[in-house]
């Protein structure tokens, strides 16, 4: 277990590359759909070979405009979430899937020609087209793929052990301590599992220093800006301007109409337990106000996500693995990508029930969003209207891969607490720990 020795963080990239207009985009759809549709049965690309990959997706943006109707060139987006650095991920991607990458990106503008194709030149190409993550939120910080799969294996092994002992009539009459001792003994004696008795490595001092230093500067910034906030921002930006612009927005509640895109989307949903959400839309007018508001919203979100919601829950939502906002098309459009457990209906209901204000502050800056009031109110509090706007701005991902489509966020957290009971860092009583099994 690598992260027993050293802390490994999680990263994510969004690479947006223009599709060569001289190429047939339908062919690219066919290629990607072929990869995506067979991903869990007869994989075309060997994603399982990529040891640091959590999830990835490819999708095509076609026919998108900004809010004024200016066309954004049809593009291919690759989004991935991984352990370690961008460089490490891209190197692994090219090592394992070079031929597919050549095939897919053969449809894109500016991809290095065959003669000049080297790992370095392709990595350079990817990095050049990377869009900046306004916010990247890994739900379970420090949890590597290896650890997530490993801890699930430990949990499953304990289940098998317990069922065997029960069948042999050897569990009856034991005290909690005796049962746990038996489990520990079993894990110690399995060379493939005994790493679980060691603790995961803590982030190094330098990481912690930077982490808290950044927090301190951000808090200082807030304190420093407090007079501006009170005098200018709250009365003017928040209370006054918001109302002026909100009243110009479309006031009508829109009812859902199933389009072909939504049908395509549904066909790809619920194939495995984990699903993905790909949403993009236009930043609304007036652009300067909406974009700045969005950036402020995401800044607050990221502060919360980094320093507070960093243990498996984002504002009370318990089903997200990774969430990611990024701006593209020179800040005229915004994209939200997430990987979540279970059904779309309940995932969206969680957003509405538990963090409607956060949705309003961020998505509320996009066109056709249900009308908001003072940036925070209404909007997502209207369940049907919110779900409608999400579906209308949601697009299918032709390729979606998850390394652990059946391990939910709740399972991950429970598994890691089971492991903590083994490595000695758990503060639970033995009988409480046994309830996790």
């Amino acid at each position, binding site marked *: 277990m690598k992260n027993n020795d050293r802390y490994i963080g999680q990263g994510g990239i969004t690479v947006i590359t223009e599709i060569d207009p001289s190429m047939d985009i339908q062919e690219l759809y066919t290629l990607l759909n072929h990869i995506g549709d067979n991903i869990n049965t007869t994989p075309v690309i060997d994603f399982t070979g990529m040891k640091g990959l959590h999830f990835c997706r490819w999708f095509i943006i076609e026919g998108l405009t900004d809010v004024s109707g200016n066309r954004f060139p049809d593009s291919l987006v690759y989004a991935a979430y991984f352990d370690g650095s961008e460089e490490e991920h891209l190197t692994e991607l090219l090592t394992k899937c070079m031929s597919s990458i050549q095939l897919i990106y053969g449809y894109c503008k500016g991809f290095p020609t065959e003669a000049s194709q080297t790992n370095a030149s392709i990595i350079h190409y990817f990095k050049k087209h990377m869009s900046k993550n306004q916010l990247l939120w890994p739900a379970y910080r420090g949890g590597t793929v290896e650890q997530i799969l490993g801890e699930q294996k430990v949990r499953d092994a304990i289940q098998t052990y317990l069922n065997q002992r*029960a069948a042999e009539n050897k569990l009856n009459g034991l005290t909690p301590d005796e049962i746990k001792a038996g489990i520990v003994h079993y894990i110690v004696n399995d060379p493939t599992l005994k790493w679980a008795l060691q603790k995961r490595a803590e982030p190094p001092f330098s990481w912690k220093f930077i982490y808290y230093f950044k927090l301190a500067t951000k808090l200082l910034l807030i304190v420093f800006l407090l007079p501006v906030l009170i005098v200018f921002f709250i009365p003017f930006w928040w209370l006054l301007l918001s109302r002026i612009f909100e009243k110009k927005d479309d006031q009508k509640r829109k009812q859902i109409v199933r389009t072909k895109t939504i049908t395509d989307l549904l066909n790809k949903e619920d194939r495995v337990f984990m699903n993905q959400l790909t949403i993009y839309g236009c930043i609304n007018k007036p652009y300067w106000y909406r974009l700045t508001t969005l950036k402020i919203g995401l800044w607050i979100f990221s502060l919360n996500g980094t320093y507070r919601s960093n243990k498996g829950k984002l504002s009370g939502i318990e089903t997200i693995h990774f969430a990611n906002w990024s701006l593209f098309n020179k800040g005229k459009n915004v994209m939200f990508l997430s990987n979540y457990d*279970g059904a779309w*209906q309940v995932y969206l209901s969680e957003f509405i029930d538990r963090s409607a204000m956060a949705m309003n502050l961020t998505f509320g800056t996009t066109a056709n969003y249900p009308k908001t009031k003072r940036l925070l109110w209404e909007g997502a509090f*209207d369940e049907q209207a919110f779900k409608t706007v999400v579906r209308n701005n949601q697009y299918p991902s032709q390729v979606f891969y998850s390394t652990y489509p059946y391990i939910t966020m709740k399972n991950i957290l429970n598994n890691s607490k089971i492991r903590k009971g083994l490595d000695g860092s758990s503060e639970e009583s033995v009988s409480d720990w046994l*309830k996790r099994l």
Partner: protein
Amino acid sequence: MTESVELNDVQGIIIKGYDKLKAAAFLLLEIKDITKTKQWIESQLPYVIKGSTSTKEIDSAIHIAFTYSGVAALNIPAEGLKTFPPEFIEGMVTEHRSRMLGDLDDSAPEKWNWGGNEKDFYSIHILLMLYAIDKPALDLLLNEQKTKLDSANIKISYELDTHKLNNEKEHFGFRDGIAQPVMSGINHTSKTDANMINAGEFLFGYQNEYNKYMFSPTIEPAHDPNNILPADKNNAALKDLGRNGSMLVFRQLEQNVKAFWNMAENAANEQTAQDNPTTPEYIASKMLGRWPNGSPLTKCPVQPDTSKETFDNFGYAKDDYDGLKCPIGAHIRRANPRDNFLRDSTGDKEKDIEKSMMFMKRFRIIRRGRSYGPPLVESMNPADIINTADDNQERGLYFLCFNSNIGRQFELIQQTWINNPKFAGLYEDPDPMIGYPGIMGEGATTTFTEQALPIRKQVKGITRFVNVKGGAYFFMPGLTTLKYLSSI
């Protein structure tokens, strides 16, 4: 302020279950002649029992609902048709919906008795529900209707008979239909607050639990020349077809009674052999969450209590958080997680409870199911069921429920709570009685975890005892809309 429900415009079956009317039959009809069908609808209006009518006053009832093909057949303008909920428009059978609902393998639509194929999607138009005090009275009602339908040139495609079982039980031998929500805006003093749900969760035209009006099917005023319909609450420029109507989910669920009890017997024998003496009734009750007589395990964990047969005023969060009494994966705890919907979510137990109670109101349905097929034994007593050999008769439940948002209510409950092996932090445990873990891929099996001290017990490799044999989504209009439909 609570809006009062226009009970005299709501079809009565949405308001009451008609326990007194022990005989019932459901007819699935195909329209052959639009004009005559409209005349038939108009002629039936006086017999459609209203929500305001006391059950004491009636000894029979009829109710009428439509599929999407049905409302389309009645010439509702195309613009209006588009405003019906997408789930209703698409119908119960789509590739994606079958995955969500678990209608796969033995429950796959192509194996259904009705509603599973394209022909039925287009030709099942109307659901006619007939209720009567006893079998002879129902036969009279049926014969009378058949004559009328025949003269209206309406074809009876399927006739579904019901069989009311003794002691309010369903075929597995458990008392059914206990936890029912009621609409606020109707006078119900005996109900607990948790079961008091805004009328908009079940009927169009009222505020729902988000304090919004659900998108209702509407038409342009030009299509309502006689001004029959009320204005839409969301857009007063439109006429509301949905007002006082509800969406009806109808599924035929076949129950393999002997297979269920054989599983419980085997599991009991296995645990007894492991020095945990137990009975099949105990295992089955743990899976359901109530004893066969209806008393809830959370309140009576050791044995059934005859004084608590319909007891419903309880929660899990305080008395039974860990599932030591009613297991976390038990049927009633998944179908309605009550105050334990959020588990360790906000970091504050009291706040979790408060929010759970509030959120749960958004995921409730009114159930109006009826059993069909003869009981394996008349007594409906599990001990007798276990001791009786299989008679290989078809039996099960016509599951009927009302809600105003099929996607957020019925489908969410079915997908996220019933079929979901990951429910409430579990791993491979869908509903042990009616769930199907199709989402886990080929070869996935069901485990049932019974939380216990010092360590849980498990029943592994549970197969499917309940299979879907038919189904469709219907719209049950209010009486005004029914009148409108007969007039256009």
